């Protein structure tokens, strides 16, 4: 087998990708705490954030073990610089208005659930175990974001316009979801991760169905973001990390 990396390194990378997506989006959602349009949404968004941060803990702990250098979940979360992060551009996108947050969430939830269901059937028992547990929670996330996309898209003139604008903001992040590098293809050949082509076609089918119901149009994607999984990020991630990592950077080893 002509692998780019050995299996342990590939697993480490894949676990980081899973953990980083969950942690960055969890952090973004937590920024809505005490700031959401209504109380129920404040609770919903922070509950989703809590689930995602829980997933991140499981993935990053497993990543640290796969790496074998003794790094803990906290080391990986708080002591890595921006180029060492493996998350997608979509999850680092700033919250914007509630419409942007919901479109971002709907795109990610749709991808996340298909990915986790694929991982749960995969041949890596540890990854499958975490994925199976996480998928149960993500089904609720998707139900929530999907309902909002339909309600606001097929809502008032104002809510429809905002949703359409949010789609324009998020669409350039979509192609990256389905990029597969050599690491992914190696894991795919070992049946550890789901087939990327299948993931893409199922995502499009499901998302387009909901957008049609929401009377929204997926915009034409003229230029797309790329490279988050390889550590190439937009301008936003650095600011997010500065806030998220502040305490451990300023007071190394602080705990309570």
């Amino acid at each position, binding site marked *: 087998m002509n692998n780019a990396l050995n299996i342990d390194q590939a697993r480490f990378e894949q676990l980081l990708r899973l953990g980083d997506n969950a942690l960055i989006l969890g952090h973004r959602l937590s920024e809505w705490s005490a700031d959401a349009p209504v109380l129920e949404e404040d609770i*919903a968004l922070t509950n989703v954030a*809590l*689930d995602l941060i*829980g997933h991140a803990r*499981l993935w990053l702990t497993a990543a640290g073990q796969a790496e074998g250098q003794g790094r803990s979940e906290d080391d990986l979360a708080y002591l890595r610089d921006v180029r060492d992060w493996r998350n997608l551009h979509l999850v680092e996108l700033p919250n914007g208005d509630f419409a942007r947050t919901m479109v971002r969430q709907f795109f990610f939830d749709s991808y996340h659930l298909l990915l986790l269901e694929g991982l749960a059937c995969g041949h890596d028992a540890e990854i499958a175990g975490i994925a199976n*547990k996480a998928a*149960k929670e993500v*089904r609720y996330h998707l*139900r929530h974001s999907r309902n909002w996309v339909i309600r606001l898209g097929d809502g008032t003139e104002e809510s429809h316009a905002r949703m359409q604008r949010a789609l324009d903001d998020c669409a350039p992040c979509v192609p990256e979801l389905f990029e597969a590098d050599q690491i992914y293809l190696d894991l795919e050949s070992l049946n550890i991760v789901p087939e990327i082509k299948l993931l893409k076609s199922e995502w499009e089918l499901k998302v387009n169905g909901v957008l049609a119901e929401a009377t929204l149009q997926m915009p034409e994607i003229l230029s797309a973001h790329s490279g988050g999984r390889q550590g190439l990020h937009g301008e936003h991630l650095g600011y997010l990390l500065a806030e998220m990592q502040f305490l451990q950077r300023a007071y190394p080893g602080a705990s309570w």
Partner: protein
Amino acid sequence: MSAVLPPVTTHAQVLELLDSVTDPEIPTVSIGDLGIIRDVEVHHLGQEIHVVITITPTYSGCPATRVIEASIRNTVERAGIQKVVIKNRLQPAWTTDWITERGRQRLLEAGISPPACCVAHSIPDDTNVACPYCQSHNTLVLSQFGSTPCKALWHCRDCLEPFDYFKPH
């Protein structure tokens, strides 16, 4: 509280002991009744008794998990067990199907409507949720997310009370 209790030495006694450990968010329901305890082993090593307790987390990010671990440890150590090992098991993932009949009853008594369906045999369906106060099925979901990860916020259209619903999971 300070009465001298007989020493805990058997599997059944450890289980009985764990029955007093509750979920901090739902203090009327024991962790056994919630299906969190998956396995208990009791080892007699010379004069010492070591206990291995396997638990499964409910929701991945639930902050109660760590509190539950600490209460298990405290409770078992206070009963004179020399060593307590707590193991976490993710697979098979926790499901509300493991909540016991007594657990469901206690949830109801605490004003929390228990899951309306068995997850293993059906896709979670929330169309038949009963109000814990007046038992009416004329109810409405206000939010899929509630005060804790395991609950959703509902409203009864007959007695007009809001209530928590333990989500099928």
